[in-house]
């Protein structure tokens, strides 16, 4: 035993005076309590000031007065992006896209959501569709998304759902519908395809969005290996579709104006009609590139079309799952006559007379389907893309909650450990208090 060290320590301690600190300790305790209360008051006041402001974000203005534009670089929606109906509302979108990968939710090969990019700014949202097939379409003004979804209830058949991005309201068109096919240029009508529950027959109808009135165009058997219907509205409201190797042109009332054998041709997207409505473009489903052929809308004969530059490269394998197995889509036309084509993970601008296409927008490789608002295309405006960070607001809230829970757990564990430790300390037989030294 270090007796000498012990003795010297006790001798050293014995030289201590008895400090009269009672009154000053009370003063110190009161002062520290006042400081603690003041600090808490400041914290509470700051929270009272900040929380209401943080909870009421500025609404994003609908693109009134500000022309919609396209981002030059499309990004993937963040993990935990806000829903399309979440506040603050998006107002309108310029791009609607779907694809495969974890950013599109669900499993890698079974996505359950679409991505949306804002009309005037790069604010991204997601639209949850569930694990249903089909596609989503953006209305010409970019304000409404039409897709097939399954509403809650006993009848589990898909219904066409309209999501208003300006108000967040969701409405359902009457009847059933398995796929939204095309919006009319005025946004008042919607062509849909309805596949029977047993999958053996399909029907093509045009619905009035306002009241749900439907014009049935054709009902057809869906044999094994049948191709999907491809369709497009003309600027004047006529409607062309290709089904069972025949092309049809009908007027707004559904009266057939023209039909002719289409052979291996398919319409090439919602922008298949030329801006003047005289002809429409079709592509061969066997082509490995995108080579449009133009057909006169009144005679059905192949005619010379706009002198668009060729889309380079072999596009086979770039895009899968597009209606009609098309390799590229003609999305629409600018007012200057430039056609926008989604091909090879890019949106290309094909200006008549130009030597080569110009890249309007780059698209991530995971994106397989893309729709652009007609107004955003027509204006021809392109803005610098600003894709979102990988972690979105909803995930940030979850992560913050998780962090808080872990923090509380750690604090609780520390508190328990501290209490147990204090019980042991309180039971310590202090020799200097109770033993011979005291």
């Amino acid at each position, binding site marked *: 035993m270090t007796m000498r060290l012990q003795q010297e320590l006790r001798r050293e301690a014995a030289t201590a005076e008895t*400090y009269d600190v*009672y009154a000053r300790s009370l003063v110190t*305790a009161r002062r*520290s309590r006042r400081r603690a209360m003041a600090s808490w008051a400041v914290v509470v006041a700051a929270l009272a000031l900040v929380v209401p402001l943080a909870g009421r974000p500025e609404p994003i203005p609908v693109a009134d007065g500000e022309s919609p534009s396209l981002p030059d670089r499309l990004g993937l929606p963040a993990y935990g992006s806000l829903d399309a109906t979440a506040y603050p509302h998006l107002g309108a979108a310029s791009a609607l896209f779907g694809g495969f990968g974890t950013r599109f939710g669900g499993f890698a090969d079974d996505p359950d959501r679409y991505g949306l990019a804002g009309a005037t700014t790069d604010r991204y949202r997601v639209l949850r569709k569930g694990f249903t097939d089909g596609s989503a379409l953006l209305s010409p003004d970019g304000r409404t998304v039409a897709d097939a979804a399954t509403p809650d209830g006993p009848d589990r058949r898909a219904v066409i759902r309209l999501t208003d991005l300006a108000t967040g309201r969701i409405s359902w068109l009457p009847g059933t519908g398995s796929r939204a096919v095309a919006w009319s240029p005025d946004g008042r009508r919607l062509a849909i395809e309805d596949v029977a529950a047993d999958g053996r027959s399909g029907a093509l109808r045009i619905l009035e969005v306002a009241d749900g009135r439907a014009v049935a165009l054709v009902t057809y058997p869906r044999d094994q290996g049948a191709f999907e219907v491809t369709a497009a509205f003309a600027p004047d409201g006529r409607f062309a579709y290709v089904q069972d190797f025949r092309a049809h042109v009908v007027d707004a009332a559904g009266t057939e104006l023209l039909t002719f054998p289409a052979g291996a041709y398919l319409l090439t997207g919602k922008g298949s009609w030329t801006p003047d409505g005289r002809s429409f473009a079709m592509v061969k489903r066997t082509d490995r590139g995108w080579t449009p052929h133009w057909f006169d809308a009144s005679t059905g004969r192949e005619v010379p079309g706009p002198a668009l530059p060729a889309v380079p490269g072999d596009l086979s394998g770039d895009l899968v799952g597009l209606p009609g197995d098309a390799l590229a889509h003609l999305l629409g036309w600018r007012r200057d006559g430039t056609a926008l084509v989604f091909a090879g993970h890019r949106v290309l601008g094909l200006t008549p007379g130009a030597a080569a296409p110009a890249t309007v927008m780059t698209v991530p490789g995971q994106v397989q389907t893309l729709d652009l608002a007609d107004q955003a295309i027509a204006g021809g405006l392109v803005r610098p893309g600003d894709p979102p960070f990988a972690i979105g607001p909803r995930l940030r809230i979850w992560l913050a909650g998780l962090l808080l829970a872990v923090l509380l757990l750690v604090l609780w564990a520390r508190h328990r450990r*501290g209490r147990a430790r204090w019980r*042991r300390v309180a039971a310590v037989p202090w020799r200097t208090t109770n033993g011979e030294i*005291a």
Partner: protein
Amino acid sequence: MAEVDGFREFVRERTPALSRHAYLLTGDHQLAEDLLQSALAGTYRHWRRIADSNPEAYVRQAMYHQQVSWWRRRRVPEQLAAVPHQPALADPAEATALRLTMTQALSRLTPKQRAVIVLRFYEDLTEAQAADVLGCRIGTVKRHAHDALRRLREVAPDLIDSGLRRVERSPR
């Protein structure tokens, strides 16, 4: 904040022992007074909760924690004395010289090392009890005790006798 029953009596009765304790921890009368005042102020704020258990243990624990806390060390920087050139001599003035050496040797320790030395050799607590008081692991107490004794042995060899090794291996 009204005065709390029993606190005044507690302070009056226990101040001498607590003063010795504070002085041993700091090695300076002013710092010891300040330390005791702070510990008692903290005790007063929680008096109702701890009055029925062991308030003195609370004060002592508070003193140890404050003495080794980063905040307090920042406020009161430690003044280290120079190393004595000669160890204490075994002559008639040995006791005085040894005491001076003791004071200088303790001043060479860090606050944590000093706290461990006081707990282990003044309070005669086990390593586990010392760890509970300081709120650290037993291994930390062992480490500080080892380092402190080594430093004391360097500064004042006569202070640490040969029986030290048995102390270092004392029961937990």
